[in-house]
């Protein structure tokens, strides 16, 4: 490998006729910055390839992978507008126009699951976005290092569990003989079949989501907290700010970029509410509140074999998600000056 590369380098030397000394590999010129650029630009692709072919070769398989497993399905969305026949082309067989789009826009079930998705996504955002900030602030006040570390480790733990395990645990905790109902009965209440009641689904879902994500969510905030300038606290204290006001006027503004970035990300994922978890957790008794766009399209598409129809729904969902993340990013760049890109 290195021998072949040396040959490539030798070629580069002859073409470019550089000043004395070794020829630096092209991709290493970053530090010379803009001044070095014009001559580099003039060199043709053929030359670039000859010099950096090893790099391109290294990227080849991963890029092909992305094209095959990420981009082909993107174009496969075309079957939302074409009729797909099992066993036929993955891009569908004949054009049917907006038929499937109209179909779901007129489907009352669709609007029901859409509303469920928005509510569930909204509740998740409402609780799962701010709570890690609160926990991070509380952890930040802990000055016994080992204690802090132990709490952190324990709070990350649920993040590493499979959804299947989480749902299994939920089912045991929430069963009629489960811990939660034992507590309810101990305080004189009556046992509730949580998982069979549509009105409880959202609570169960959001509650378990908090359990699973709150600790993991603190990682970034704790990191951001360490970068807040200590002299600002001193200044605030001299101005007579107590602990609470220091938090409000120094700490929170200090971690605002992190908050904004994560908020954008959360908004972008808004409609992707835990498909797998809902799928594992719901049942016909709770469809009323639990069925979301992705579970509905799963049933329509893969259970009832209506591929084109389900693809139309999925495409709609993906486009809304894309628009939301772009909008959130644009707004935050305008309003707060922090953005993802």
């Amino acid at each position, binding site marked *: 490998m*290195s021998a072949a590369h040396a040959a490539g380098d030798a070629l580069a030397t002859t073409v470019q006729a550089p000043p004395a000394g070794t020829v630096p*590999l*092209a*991709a*290493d010129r*970053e*530090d010379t910055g803009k001044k070095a650029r014009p001559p580099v630009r003039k060199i043709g*692709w053929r030359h670039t390839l000859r010099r*950096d072919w*090893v*790099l391109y070769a*290294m*990227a080849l*398989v991963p890029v092909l*992978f992305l094209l095959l497993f990420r*981009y082909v399905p993107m174009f*496969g969305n075309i*079957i939302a507008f074409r009729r*797909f026949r099992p066993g036929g082309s993955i891009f569908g067989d004949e054009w049917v126009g907006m038929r499937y789009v109209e179909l779901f826009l007129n489907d009352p079930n669709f609007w029901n699951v859409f509303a469920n998705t928005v509510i569930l996504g909204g509740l998740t955002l409402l609780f799962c976005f701010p709570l890690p900030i609160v*926990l991070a602030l509380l952890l930040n*006040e*802990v*000055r016994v290092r080992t*204690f802090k570390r132990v*709490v952190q*480790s324990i709070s990350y*733990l*649920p993040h*590493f*569990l*499979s*959804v*299947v*395990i989480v749902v*299994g*645990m939920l*089912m*045991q905790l929430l069963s009629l003989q489960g*811990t939660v109902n*034992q507590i309810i009965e101990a305080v004189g209440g009556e046992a509730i079949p949580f998982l069979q009641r549509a009105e409880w689904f959202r609570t169960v879902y959001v509650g378990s989501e908090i*359990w699973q994500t709150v*600790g993991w969510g603190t*990682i*970034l905030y704790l*990191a951001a907290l360490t970068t807040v300038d*200590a002299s600002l*606290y001193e200044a605030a204290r001299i101005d007579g700010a107590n*602990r609470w006001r220091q938090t409000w006027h120094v700490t929170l503004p200090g971690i605002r970029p992190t908050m904004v*970035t994560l908020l954008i990300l959360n908004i972008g994922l808004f409609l992707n509410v835990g498909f797998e978890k809902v*799928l*594992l957790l719901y049942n016909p008794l709770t469809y009323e509140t639990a069925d979301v766009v*992705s579970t509905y*399209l799963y049933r329509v*598409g893969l259970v009832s074999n209506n*591929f084109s129809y389900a*693809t139309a729904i*999925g495409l709609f969902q*993906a486009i809304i998600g894309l628009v939301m*993340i772009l909008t959130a990013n644009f707004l935050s760049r305008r309003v707060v000056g922090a953005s*993802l890109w």
Partner: protein
Amino acid sequence: MSVGPRDSKSYKTFTWFNGTFLVLLCGFMLYPFVTVLAQSFSSAGAVKAGMVNVWPVGFNLTTYQVVIANDLFWSSYRNTVVYTLVGTTIAMVLTTLLAYVLARRALRGRNVLIGIAVFTMFFNGGLIPNYVLIQTLGLKNTMWAVVLPGAISVFNLLVMKSFFENMPSELEEAAQIDGLGWWGIFRRIVMPLSKAVIATMILFYSVAIWNDWFAAFLYLDKQELFPVTLYLRNMIAGASSTASQGAAASGSSTSEIAANIQAVTMVLTIIPVLCIYPFVQRYFVSGIMLGSVKG
């Protein structure tokens, strides 16, 4: 923290409450784990009656024996191990190579390549087109359907890329002067210095594959190919034959033994994750920070 020497009395009270709250929070976080563990060691009757909380009631290991003696459990478990090893290896090779290339700031076409990768974070093909693709490629009912599609996580890719970008460039320059090409630098300079980020990525990928059930649920129909998570899911959904087999073995009714067997299967599924997690923990905190600072 810069609190200063004069802590107010009210702040001391706060510290006290804060500590108590965090201890309670830990209890809340751990409780489900502890219960499942206790149930796995308890007698079926005690579990069914809801008598088990944090301590086993009617301690016995029979349930473990029943589960371990089950062929389907073992084949599922073995599948999970195989999928995780193969999948993580593929994912690491692809991700590391691409991240290394994308970290060369002056590489021609770099921004195009980054764009190709990043765009997939915001827009994806969706369930059905992915399913059709896997079917068309003939990957259904093979382990490749589980192992391949997730091989590059763009988030992980960006973490690695920024890690490589932050490496001191002098090292690579020196290596070049000594005659190393890109491949040589990658293998002999960059890799040995990236153990932290590599460990983090291995953890992320292997945990993701270990925990995954949905790809298997979608693409595998044959029980002998199921990973343990799918086996567990079917058991929870009441569709697995294991529960009834177990029940038959111990002579009690299906629902009675099911909760027990579920607990044991869960414990056995979680254990490997819990075992590697503490060792890699110190790495992933820095890893995830790297990735988020500049996406």
